[in-house]
């Protein structure tokens, strides 16, 4: 029986998928479970397996092509089977959203699985979708008048490349006309060849960052609380730990993960999400750590960090950070944290504020350890200090709670033996 192969949902936030590479070509025989293509979600590149055996009769989304989650990417059928009906099937107006769990169920229900979940219904044919793709990239919507959209579609123009001069940057008829005029001439507009600014199209990861950060900063009422920690004890403690075993190289991040997990345990109000006019307090303490990768960042998650030893945390983080840089993390590994740490200390940053990663309710921005004059018992001494800034969703967390969390964290960092108790 002919089967439509659809773009699976590879991560919680994935709406569009990109076929990075087909590993099979039309006419190849496919066994169920065989890898047929590589697909890129907003966060990672994953292998797509066929669920059914047969002949790969038709590839509908070529290498580099994008399609919504659930969109048909290929058809597998018997060699002599008539697939014309499947090819002509009207695209349903299915959007990626339909396969997402409702936000209120984030805590309980969303267990992102490494196994791609097939969409329940066949969705837009790639060819129909391709036209829309010219107009919007993923969910970063371009503002254009209906007429401008129609003109761009008819003339096969990429709206991303056109500067909007209408209200709020809306692309209007005159922008399309002037763009066409400009592209008709061969001379570069600035007169000097090579003087034009470089325009970089967003990859799926940047699109996700764009969307989620805009969503966060425009819908979450952020407030910030900064506290300075005495780092001398932790520096000493880390030296001792790393001296204890030859192979062990515990990082400050590992210690911070553990400290935050314990602080969250004593201040559970911070370990929360705000969704559907409800505050959801998480029982699990899963800590995401922002890791910079080329063109973006990703946040591998240490699950149940409160119950793990520093050694375990160190092992997990080291391994995940490496795979993160190769974009080989699976969605289970980088989604569904309850709290995030972003550390720019290694760049000699004093302090900074971070944007909350929804649906989490807080994020800790960590600055560098500075050697500074400090006052101890009325005497000026040389000491090591570090500033952290907690950004909180005020709908879920109030200032006093944030301060109590930081005070607890300070206590742990300044008395590091408590981290191994």
């Amino acid at each position: 029986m002919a089967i439509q192969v659809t773009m699976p949902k590879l991560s919680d936030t994935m709406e569009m998928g990109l076929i990075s590479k087909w590993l099979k070509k039309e006419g190849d025989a496919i066994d169920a479970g065989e890898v047929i293509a590589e697909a890129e979600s907003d966060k990672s590149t994953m292998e797509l397996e066929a669920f059914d055996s047969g002949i790969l009769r038709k590839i509908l989304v070529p290498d580099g092509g994008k399609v919504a989650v659930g969109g048909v990417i290929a058809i597998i059928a018997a060699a002599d089977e008539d697939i014309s009906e499947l090819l002509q099937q009207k695209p349903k107006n299915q959007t990626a959203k339909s396969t997402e769990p409702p936000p209120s169920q984030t805590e309980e229900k969303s267990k992102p699985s490494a196994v791609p979940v097939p969409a329940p219904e066949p969705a837009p044919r790639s060819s129909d979708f391709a036209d829309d793709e010219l107009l919007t990239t993923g969910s970063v919507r371009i503002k254009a008048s209906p007429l401008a959209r129609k003109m761009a579609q008819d003339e096969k123009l990429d709206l991303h490349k056109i500067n909007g001069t209408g209200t709020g940057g809306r692309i209007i008829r005159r922008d399309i006309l002037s763009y066409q005029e400009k592209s008709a001439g061969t001379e570069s507009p600035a007169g000097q060849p090579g003087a034009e600014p470089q325009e970089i199209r967003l990859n799926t990861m940047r699109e996700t960052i764009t969307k989620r950060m805009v969503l966060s900063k425009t819908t979450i009422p952020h407030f910030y609380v900064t506290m300075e920690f005495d780092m001398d004890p932790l520096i000493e403690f880390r030296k001792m730990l790393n001296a204890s075993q030859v192979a062990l190289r515990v990082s400050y991040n590992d210690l911070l993960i553990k400290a935050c997990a314990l602080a969250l345990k004593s201040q559970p109000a911070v370990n929360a999400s705000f969704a559907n006019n409800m505050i959801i307090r998480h029982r699990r303490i899963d800590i995401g750590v922002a890791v910079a990768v080329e063109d973006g960042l990703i946040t591998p998650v240490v699950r149940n960090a409160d119950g793990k030893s520093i050694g375990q945390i160190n092992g997990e983080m080291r391994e995940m950070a490496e795979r993160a840089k190769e974009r080989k993390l699976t969605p289970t590994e980088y989604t569904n944290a309850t709290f995030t740490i972003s550390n720019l200390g290694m760049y000699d940053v004093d302090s900074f504020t971070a944007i909350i990663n929804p649906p989490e309710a807080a994020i800790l921005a960590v600055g560098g350890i500075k050697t500074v004059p400090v006052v101890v018992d009325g005497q000026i001494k040389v000491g090591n200090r570090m500033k952290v800034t907690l950004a909180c969703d005020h709908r879920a967390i109030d200032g006093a709670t944030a301060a109590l969390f930081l005070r607890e964290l300070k206590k742990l960092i300044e008395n590091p033996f408590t981290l191994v108790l």
Partner: protein
Amino acid sequence: MAEITFREALNQAMAEEMQRDENVYLMGEEVGYYNGAYKVSQGLMEKFGASRVIDTPIAELGFAGVGIGSAMVGLRPIIEMMTFNFSILALDQIINNAAKLRYMSGGQFKIPIVFRGPGGSAHMLAAQHSQCLDPWFCNVPGLIVMTPSTPYDGKGMLKTAIRDDNPVIFIESESMYGFKGEVPEEEYLIPIGVGDIKRGGSDITLVAWNKMVHVAMEAAAILEKEDIEAEVIDPRTLKPLDEQMIVTSVEKTNRCVVIEEGWPYAGVGAEIAARISALAFDSLDAPILRVSSEDLPMPYAHNLEKEVLPSVDKVVRAAKKVLYI
């Protein structure tokens, strides 16, 4: 072609139709001996007698009902509302009987009746006597709503309204009765549901009716000085609407401003905007804007009255906004 006033054009329409068909008669407050509160029925009583030009007490609900009853048994009444502000008192008859009886009797009765009179504001008549009720009537299935902007249209449309077998709300304007315009000697009829392009243009569509057509025309003249060619469309009949004429124009100009004297909320302008976005979505280069009266009871003070009403300046500004200039 003779140049006559709006009131004379309407007077001719009624006189000609009464002459043509003895079932046509006029009824209302002061229409007979006083020759009409605004002299629209000048000379009709003298010409056709007191049995066909009937003065009524101040009792709108009553004489609207009498009119509807007479229409049910074969007459073709013209019911003059001294102004449409007073038609509010007759709404039960208009909405529940005139608009419904043909439907509810399974077509056994037809209701060939015209309710006519001035609507909208005039000059310092304050909140209760300065109301534009076009959308109220347009909202009721079973009513035809016509509203002319020139003497020529007024005559041709009123004759059609009188000849139609359905109830017609025919909204004139107190401040337009003195407007002059060319009206041919020979008979002509303007069909229901057919609009008129009052001024051709390629850059923006202005939709307006009744006295707002004149505001739109003035705005178009100002825009012309800036090389903007506005097309002014007068739908003339608000229900059924000549949507094809509007859509064709918007397909050409890609932008539209609707000018209406009524209040903005759920107004006729909203209906027109909705239809344009449904039928000409891909032609729109800008949102459709409306210029209407402010959402307020009309103030008595003249300076405030001017602020509340749509003005040439407001139309020019809205036009420039949708032209992105």
